[in-house]
């Protein structure tokens, strides 16, 4: 039996899959291998299969960004390695495999009256993932992050070696692995410290009026073990930084008959989470979380919170894992996904904190969740996120207008005051700022050279940030709508008019021309009228006006003519759709054949143009699309009673253009009840 045959027999079979982080942005394809036993790992990591294109371990896929994906390479799915080996009740230790989820671990521990000292906002992360991200909870200011509670771990290096690491045994590599984003090796097992399971927590809630008060409550020396604030990012002026602050302590249960404190039924009940109450459906549309809804939600949530509440008993699971109540909640943001941006600024940089709130407000980013916490001293390795100071995490829909520039600005602000962003949530940081945010970066690189000289461990995140060698993937631009500020709607130079003889459309072009010079392409049926329109626009000062002939009814020609127009114009920043016509006296013609002709132009013709225009603009980088075309005859004067109910329907339900457009993936609406213009 040859060596390759042997390898094929032992190693799991790779399947190619598309992977993304929890935020569902920027998926990439990789060969996924799922070992079923820990013994397979050394061989797997040493094999050619994974050395082609590099390899990274992936746990539950709960990192928000691109930390656990590896385009064109291999990804080791750790979810097959989830055994919980032993629980030492005397020394309060638990040893588990890297793929075990905290959910499984916490359930098992609860039966023995124990829990983990640090838990993140969701229990559906793996042990190895929690270590590689050095996750933190609501108690970082008191108990530190995950890193502080790892006693030892087993690391499988790219050379296929299994190393048992602890502070005393290759401490450098041990610490670098805590928060090391999986770039030092694969954590196959770990021994974690545990704490007694309290029956519940006793929570105090305060609604604060501004940042001063929020910081004061959260910085109190005699502070509670757990503290977290939900911040209203949309409040400005004196109310900036107002928050709902929740602080709590575990309820101490006296030990009974030598049994561990807290090991009563109540505690176990409290830690038990039923499955998610609700699951967000797979195709949940993203527009539900649009800015106005977010605003209303924030206000409601604010009003609903008690001003002051003391000593409320809360069950553990819903308190620690509020997000787990809703299954697959990342689908809330629709297919475009979302990103979570989390940063920390050191104590003393409160001014930067204020500036960051200002920035969120100025860019009008729709922030749904803003979680604010106090952090204690840092502990983990060179890439570990926590830093003594204040941390803020916000969820933002991927398509939010102006998002990329706003976050770039924020990065500069954070880096400038000695803060940093959380790599486990990152999908867009520029590599040049990484060294500023993580000053020990060079030390991490040196360690990596020692343990992974060939640069086998690789992820999209590592490549993007220059954490590993290899052809660096160009940073993908965030998909987003047109920015509100400088690049806003009306500033684009190239204007495409579909229905180039429309008086309203021409008036819009003249109005645009008044602001800045515009190059215009007029598309319409009547070449003589288009020529007139061209002369008119040139007289108004337009430097370049093209005319192209197109009949709205000849739908099969639309693609070609639009391509032609966009080609000649070099793309379009603004497209005005003004196609459609009135029947006689503004109503529907009484002859059915005539009425059908009107419908052909107004529905099929304008709908086809709308979709082709949207597609062409998307392919050329997007722009603003102004839709004037009536999809229904407007003036009720000529309407017969028999058509009236249908007309009402069309006003209540999405109109034809709206539906067709939603299908093409761009949310645009057709014009309603009034206008009347000929294309």
């Amino acid at each position: 039996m040859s060596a390759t045959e042997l390898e094929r027999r032992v190693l799991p079979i790779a399947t190619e899959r598309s992977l993304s982080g929890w935020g569902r942005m920027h998926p990439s394809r990789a060969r996924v291998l799922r070992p079923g036993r820990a013994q397979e790992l050394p061989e797997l990591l040493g094999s050619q299969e994974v050395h082609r294109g590099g390899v990274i371990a992936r746990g539950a896929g709960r990192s928000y960004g691109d930390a656990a994906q590896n385009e064109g390479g291999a990804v080791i799915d750790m979810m097959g390695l989830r055994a919980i080996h032993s629980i030492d009740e005397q020394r309060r230790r638990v040893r588990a495999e890297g793929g075990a989820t905290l959910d499984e671990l916490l359930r098992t521990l609860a039966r023995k009256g124990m829990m983990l000292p640090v838990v993140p906002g969701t229990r559906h992360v793996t042990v190895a993932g929690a270590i590689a991200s050095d996750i933190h909870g609501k108690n970082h200011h008191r108990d530190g992050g995950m890193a502080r509670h790892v006693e030892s771990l087993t690391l499988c290096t790219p050379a296929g070696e299994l190393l048992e690491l602890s502070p005393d045994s290759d401490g450098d590599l041990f610490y670098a692995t805590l928060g090391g984003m999986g770039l030092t090796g694969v954590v196959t097992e770990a021994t974690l410290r545990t704490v007694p399971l309290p029956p519940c927590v006793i929570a105090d809630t305060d609604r604060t009026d501004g940042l001063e008060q929020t910081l004061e409550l959260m910085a109190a020396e005699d502070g509670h073990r757990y503290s977290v604030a939900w911040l209203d990012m949309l409040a400005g002026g004196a109310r900036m930084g107002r928050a709902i602050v929740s602080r709590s302590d575990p309820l101490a249960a006296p030990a009974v008959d030598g049994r561990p404190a807290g090991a009563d039924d109540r505690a176990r009940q409290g830690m038990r989470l039923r499955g998610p109450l609700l699951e967000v459906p797979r195709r949940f549309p993203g527009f539900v979380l649009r800015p106005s809804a977010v605003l209303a939600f924030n206000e409601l949530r604010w009003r609903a919170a008690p001003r002051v509440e003391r000593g409320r008993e809360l069950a553990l699971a819903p308190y620690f894992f509020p997000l787990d109540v809703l299954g697959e909640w990342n689908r809330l943001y629709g297919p475009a996904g979302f990103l979570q941006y989390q940063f920390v600024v050191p104590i003393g940089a409160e001014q930067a904190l204020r500036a960051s709130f200002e920035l969120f407000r100025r860019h009008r980013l729709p922030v749904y969740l803003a979680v604010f916490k106090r952090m204690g001293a840092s502990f983990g390795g060179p890439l570990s996120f926590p830093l003594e100071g204040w941390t803020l995490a916000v969820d933002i829909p991927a398509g939010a207008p102006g998002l990329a520039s706003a976050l770039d600005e924020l990065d500069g602000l954070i880096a400038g005051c000695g803060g940093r962003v959380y790599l486990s949530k990152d999908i867009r940081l520029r590599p040049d700022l990484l060294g500023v945010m993580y000053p020990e970066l060079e030390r991490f690189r040196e360690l990596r050279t020692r343990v992974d000289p060939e640069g086998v461990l690789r992820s999209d995140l590592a490549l993007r940030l220059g954490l590993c060698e290899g052809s660096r993937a160009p940073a993908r631009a965030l998909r987003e709508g047109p920015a509100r500020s400088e690049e806003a709607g009306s500033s684009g130079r190239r204007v495409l008019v579909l229905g180039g003889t429309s008086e309203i459309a021409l008036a819009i072009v003249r109005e645009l021309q008044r602001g800045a010079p515009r190059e215009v392409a007029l598309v319409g049926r009547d070449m003589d009228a288009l020529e007139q329109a061209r002369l008119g626009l040139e007289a108004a000062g337009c430097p370049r006006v093209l005319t192209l002939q197109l009949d709205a009814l000849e739908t099969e020609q639309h693609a070609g003519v639009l391509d032609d127009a966009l080609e000649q114009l070099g793309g379009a920043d603004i497209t005005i759709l003004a196609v459609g016509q009135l029947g006689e006296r503004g109503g529907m013609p009484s002859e059915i054949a005539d009425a059908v002709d009107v419908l052909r132009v107004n529905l099929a013709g304008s709908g086809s143009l709308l979709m082709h225009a949207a597609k062409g603009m998307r392919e050329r980088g997007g722009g603003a699309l102004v839709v004037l075309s009536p999809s229904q005859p407007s003036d009720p004067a000529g309407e017969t009673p028999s058509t009236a109910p249908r007309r009402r329907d069309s006003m209540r339900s999405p109109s034809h253009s709206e539906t067709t457009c939603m299908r093409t993936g761009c949310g645009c609406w057709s014009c309603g009840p009034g206008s009347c213009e000929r294309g």
Partner: protein
Amino acid sequence: MLVVRPGFVRTRMTEGLDPAPLSTTPDAVAKVVVQGLDRGASTVWAPPALRWLMLVVRMLPRSIIRRMRQ
């Protein structure tokens, strides 16, 4: 994407029709559109007051709408 919802606009096409209340001109519509673009609006009405009128009209029960037409 900006949707323009103009009311009755006095143009060649509407020549000979009795102007409806709240009628407007192409230039006025153009102003509203350009402002809407700069604001990042998703819908503009011309004249702007039409937004509230149509809101009311849309809330009316169908039976009343039908009676109004006859």
